[in-house]
Structures are given as structure tokens and as C-alpha cells.
């Protein structure tokens, strides 16, 4: 298969030509293992999963790769503040560059290659047509800082957390596919500070437990969890900065168009301890799937209906879909016959 056959030529903006293939729908990381949802720390080891699944490799490179990287470049042209790194985070940026290049070259040798001769590295990214020789740990040999360089070539948002004073500090990031949070505002905050706007979870002790767990994270033993929200149209850049531009779209959903336009937005979040800097890398990979594609899997259709219908108002408000919940429940109820669902989130074979 040639590169052009695998990678879609599509947009996440304007005319929204993004579309999941049947294969992408089947492997979509549906985030609900049960028929209801409440916050939990829900972390598990990030170990290779089923072949073909989004867990097969350390980083999932899928059919949307090239188009997502184009969309990132577009967002950065409009707003360079989406990528920032405080001065002491450069070493963590090199750690991240190494992790991504080594993983990509190992897991997708048909697309990426990395050759090392001491600190003289040669990186080839065939899908993006990049051929770069550079000196590892020498910023002057790359066109961008190391974090920006590599995250312009990797799907998903990335943040880098420094660890000191028994806390984590979000002090670098590439954030263009975010669920309504601002790196520019949050950069420099401690773990509890940047999570301040999340309702309920503080009182439940979720962040205390999560921080305690993460401070102990070991190199070579990454972990993962899901998060999710809802997005109208396949817009990756649902930033607070641009909210006046995309917010109005929420008011134009109808019974007729909700199946195509309403998307479940799933974040596969992974956490890696980095070897030199002792920072934590936090890739936040966003997957989108339209309601009409989701309901092709009967188990997901039933379960999504129940989750959306029964979610506490506070969470539906925080996730930004309270105004469209009645439409969503109405649409999804057509596909829920009340039958029990099997445990776990994999679609029924």
C-alpha cells in the first residue's frame, strides 16, 4: 500500500472532510467499560495490546496522521503560544524526542527510521517527507526546539511535567487538540492548580491519589488512562482561545444532522517517566468518532445512550454538552433496545 492510500487527505476545520474508515471505527477506543460513568484514577500499565488496536504500539500512528500534522501546523501559524517550554525544560524535550523517534522507528519501520552514530542522529519521516541530520542535545542543529520539532510530527497533544517539592509542574507543552484548556494560562502550575476547574473530582480525592501515584512513576513502566468529552464537528482545536469561533456550532445541531456532526471525543492519555530530566511526559491523544459511526457497533450504541442519559448535570455542563443532551439522548435511544451489554469496552465480534 502506498503512503497516499493509507493516510487520508482530509481536514479538521472549515469543510471538515475528516472521516473514519471502517477499520478505524472498529478500533476506536470506546472509553466506557460499563453502562455508567464517574471519575476515577483508572490507570493501567501502558503495555502493548491487541494487534490492530490503538494499544498495539507505544504511540499509535493511524490513517489520520498526515492530516493531523497539517492541522497542527495551521493552528500554530494562527497562534504560536500553543507551543511553549519554560527554559529549564529543554532537556525533557530531548528526552521526549528520543522516546518518540525510537518508538516510531521500532514500531513503524516502513515509515520512520532513526540511525545513530554517537550523538550524530539521522531521522527520516517518510509520510511527512522529512530527512533530518542533527546532533542530539544540540538545539542549534534543529529548526525548532526538540519538543516542538518532534511534536510537529506526532499525533496528540503533549505536556512535560517537572517534578520537585513532591509535586508535578506543567512547564512545557504542545497543545493544539485540547478539550477546552489553555496551555498559555496553565503553564507553570502545580498538579492541583491546573486541575482546579474540574468539578467533583477534588472532593472525591481523585487528584490526591493520582498525584501520589504519578510521583512514583518509574522509567520504563508507562501507564495509561482514558478521558472523554463531546465535540460538534470533527474539530481537533477546541481551545478556549477560539471558543467564540467554535462555540456557536453547538447551537446548530438538529435531529437531522446530529448523527453526522456530533462526535464522541476520546483522549488516550499516557504517562512516561523520562530518563535524563526525571520529568513526566504526558501525551494526550485525541480520537474522534461520529455518532452515526459509533452506533454501527450495537454494544456501543446501547452503552453510549445510557451513559449520556444518566451523567450528572454537573459533568455534562463541565464537558460542555448540557444544552444538546436531550437531542443526543433522543438520537441514541433509537439504538438502545434495553438489552444487557457485555463487560469491557471492546465491540462484540
Amino acid at each position, binding site marked *: 500500500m502506498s503512503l497516499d492510500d493509507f493516510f487520508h487527505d482530509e481536514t479538521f476545520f472549515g469543510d471538515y472532510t475528516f472521516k473514519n474508515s471502517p477499520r478505524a471505527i472498529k478500533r476506536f477506543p470506546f472509553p466506557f467499560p460499563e453502562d455508567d460513568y464517574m471519575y476515577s484514577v483508572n490507570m493501567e500499565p501502558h503495555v502493548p495490546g491487541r494487534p490492530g488496536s490503538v494499544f498495539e504500539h507505544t504511540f499509535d500512528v493511524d490513517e489520520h496522521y498526515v492530516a493531523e500534522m497539517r492541522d497542527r501546523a495551521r493552528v500554530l501559524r494562527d497562534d504560536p*503560544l500553543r507551543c511553549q517550554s519554560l527554559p529549564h525544560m529543554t532537556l525533557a524535550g530531548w528526552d521526549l524526542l528520543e522516546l518518540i523517534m525510537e518508538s516510531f522507528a521500532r514500531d513503524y519501520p516502513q515509515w520512520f527510521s532513526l540511525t545513530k552514530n554517537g550523538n550524530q542522529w539521522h531521522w527520516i519521516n517518510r509520510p511527512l517527507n522529512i530527512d533530518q541530520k542533527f546532533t542530539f542535545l544540540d538545539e542549534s542543529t534543529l529548526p525548532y526546539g526538540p519538543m516542538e520539532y518532534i511534536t510537529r510530527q506526532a499525533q496528540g497533544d503533549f505536556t512535560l511535567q517537572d517534578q520537585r517539592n513532591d509535586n508535578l509542574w506543567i512547564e512545557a507543552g504542545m497543545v493544539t487538540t485540547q478539550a477546552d484548556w*489553555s496551555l*498559555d*494560562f*496553565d*503553564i*507553570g*502550575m502545580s498538579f*492541583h*492548580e*491546573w*486541575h*482546579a*476547574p474540574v468539578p467533583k473530582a*477534588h472532593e472525591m480525592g481523585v487528584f490526591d491519589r493520582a498525584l501520589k501515584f504519578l510521583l512514583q512513576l518509574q522509567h520504563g513502566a508507562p501507564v495509561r488512562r482514558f478521558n472523554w468529552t463531546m465535540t460538534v464537528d470533527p474539530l481537533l482545536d477546541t481551545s*478556549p*482561545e*477560539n*471558543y*467564540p469561533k467554535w*462555540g*456557536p456550532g*453547538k*447551537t446548530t445541531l438538529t435531529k437531522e444532522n446530529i448523527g453526522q456532526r456530533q462526535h464522541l471525543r476520546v483522549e488516550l492519555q499516557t504517562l512516561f517517566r523520562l530518563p535524563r530530566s526525571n520529568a513526566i511526559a504526558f501525551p494526550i491523544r485525541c480520537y474522534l468518532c461520529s455518532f452515526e459511526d459509533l452506533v454501527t457497533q450495537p454494544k456501543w450504541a446501547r452503552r453510549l445512550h445510557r451513559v449520556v442519559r444518566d451523567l450528572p448535570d454537573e459533568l455534562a455542563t463541565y464537558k460542555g454538552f448540557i*444544552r444538546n443532551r436531550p437531542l443526543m439522548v433522543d438520537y441514541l435511544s433509537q439504538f438502545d433496545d434495553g438489552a444487557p451489554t457485555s463487560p469491557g469496552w471492546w465491540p462484540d465480534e
Partner: protein
Amino acid sequence: MSKTDFGPSIKSRPVYGVLTPRPGSSHLIVADGEGGAAVEALFAQAPEMKAKAHLIYIPGANGTDMSTAMAALGAGQYNRAPTYASVRSRIVKVLGDGHMGLQVYATGTESLMGQVQRDAMEAGLPHDAVQTEHRGSLARRVQCVHCKGITENVTTDPFVCSHCGLNLFVRDHYSRRLAAFQGVNIDAEDPGEVPPAEERFK
């Protein structure tokens, strides 16, 4: 004039204390509005610190002006400034010149304390090296998340961004680096449907 009682604090907002004299080679004290009363209380506890004190006082945006009393306190150096922005370069210089043993005190509005903490952090001091005491107005300093402009002395919610003119609500989210709360457009989804402004931060 007593110390302000806040409601339950949000997770990203700093917690303020009461100014307490600490032994030091010199003392930088920055106050605005009703914060002048906290300075009086501080000097009353430790009159010996006055000679080594550099006191900067900014009359409150709400009209409270204690500058006559401040000038009479007997600080080794005294400066009255119209706004924080006008005196910022002086504060940055003092922080940068500060030797080991410089003590920093900030009292008055959250905006004033936040900006002193931010400038102290930028000068390399840990953020908790600045003692703070809240006095007077609850007015907030708010950054518009859309245009990035900062509006000073916000007392109502919602309010109009002084830079881009969008109607903003004040999110309970505070950045020490910016010394500001976050303002988010309130009528993006229904343009023009803006609830009446309530005085929340008097």
C-alpha cells in the same frame, strides 16, 4: 479594618496569611488601598524594621488612599505610586538588587499581591518567599483567554474585556505566573444573551 474572609478557596488560588516581621537585612513592603493598615500593624509589632524598610504604597482603585499615613510611618525609603504598572520597574530593580536576607511583604488586593509574587518568582525567589495579607477590595485581575489582554480591578461578573470588548465571565482558575484569573466569553453560544452583571468582587 479587618482581614478579609474569603469563601472556600478554589484549588488554584493562593492562600493568604498575616504579615509577620521576620529578621532581615532589608524589607521590601508593597501595599495598595486598605493594605496600608496591615503595614501599620506590621510596623507596630517591630518598629526596629522601619529604618531598613522600603515601602511602596499605591492608593486603591476603589478610592482608599492612606498615603498621608504611609508617608508618616518613618520607612527608610518611601514611594507613593499611582498604579502597579507604573512602579513595577522599581520593584523589579529592588528584587534584583536584593541580597540574602531581603524580606518581601505584599498586602492589599489579590491583584497587588499576585503581581508582587509573580515579579519575585521572576527574580528567582520561591513564590512562598513573599508574605501576603489580604485587605480591602476583592477586585480581581483577569486575563481574557481569547485576546490575552488583562483587565484590572474587575468587580463584576460578567464584565467587558477592556481590550477586545468581549463579554467575559470570571472562571475560578488562577495563574500565579500571570497573577490573574481566567476570563471566558459568556455569550459565544448565544451572542448578545449576557446575564446582568453582578458585583461579586467588591
